[in-house]
């Protein structure tokens, strides 16, 4: 996330993947790469400093893993189990999440801006200082979670539930909300409207 190498293909500006000198689009053998990566992720309890931009993860269980300073920008997560994970300083911006679960996770200082979520579950999690700006979320649950100082600015949310959540300092400026449920949550401590600028 903080140090990226360029793809070795001339003219390509995408960052190179970890364990490769090319980006996801220029992998010579994507299946082989995915196989090795999957094995690596299943063997490690803690993973740090990986660049995995643009990859596709399907029917994968990486529950319990600790991810630190990893980049998953533009990835697709289809039926991925990330329950009980700890995720810090990671990027998931412009990624797609379908039927993926993040129950009982601890997330701090992560970027999910521009991501899309369909039928996902973040319940019973600590999602602190997390950037959800510009997300598109449908049928997704954040119930019983602590969302302290996270941002949902310019987000589009439909049938998203924030039941019994801590919304202190959570920013919902310029959001489009349809059937969004904030029951039992402290919405009075969240920010829904512009007050000049901020701070």
């Amino acid at each position, binding site marked *: 996330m903080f140090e990226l190498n360029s793809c070795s293909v001339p003219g390509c500006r995408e960052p190179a993947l970890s364990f490769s000198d090319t980006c996801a689009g220029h992998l010579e053998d994507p299946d082989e790469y995915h196989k090795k990566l999957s094995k690596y992720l299943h063997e490690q309890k803690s993973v740090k400093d990986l660049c995995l931009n643009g990859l596709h993860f399907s029917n994968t269980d990486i529950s319990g893993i600790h991810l630190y300073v990893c980049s998953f920008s533009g990835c697709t997560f289809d039926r991925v189990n990330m329950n009980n994970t700890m995720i810090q300083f990671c990027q998931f911006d412009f990624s797609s999440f379908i039927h993926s679960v993040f129950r009982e996770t601890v997330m701090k*200082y992560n970027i999910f801006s521009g991501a899309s979520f369909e039928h996902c579950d973040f319940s019973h999690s600590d999602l602190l200082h997390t950037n959800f700006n*510009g997300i598109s979320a449908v049928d997704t649950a954040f119930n019983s979670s602590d969302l302290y100082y996270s941002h949902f600015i310019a987000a589009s949310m439909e049938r998203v539930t924030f039941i019994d959540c801590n919304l202190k300092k959570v920013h919902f400026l310029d959001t489009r909300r349809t059937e969004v449920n904030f029951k039992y949550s402290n919405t009075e401590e969240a920010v829904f409207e512009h007050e000049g600028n901020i701070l």
Partner: protein
Amino acid sequence: MKVFYHFSVLGFSNTYLVGPEEGGDAVLVDPGVFDVELLNLIEGNGFYVRNVLVTHSHESHTRGIRTLKKVYDAEIICAMASLCDFPCRRVKHGDILDFGWTKAKALSLPGHSSDSMAFHMGNIVFTGDTLLAGMMGKTRNSYSRVLLRNAIIENLFSLPDHTVVLPGHGPPSSIKAEKLFNPFLKEKS
């Protein structure tokens, strides 16, 4: 490069610790507080705070300087000549700071405060209270607001899209995300 965050509940502000993989001299950005937790973070990673980057002189980002200076003989780098009664290395827009193991470029972004700077280091830009995730720093009047917005668009939006934005408050972001989703900046970007 290793980067760590530290949150201060006093000013609800972010402090960042940046250092080389192998430990050694490190840079601390905006020490809003200097507590045992931050000290353990520094020492536990084998760092010595040799330089302090201060994005602006508001107390929520500088309150920890006096205590820090009792522990580390660090040079304070900011837009002011002195801070908390300590002499500073004064920087201006465009100055390159060479820390040996990395370099940073100072970017002037007045509007939130007259001394607001951002520091671009590798793939990161520390923006203080100028640019935050989906927001802009508070300004006193419409003139300052326009000044800050123009400075952000000129000096920050010209950075690569994948540059990570680490602000003084709130969650991190990226330049690309700010171009697309920041409602305070969209109409002019």
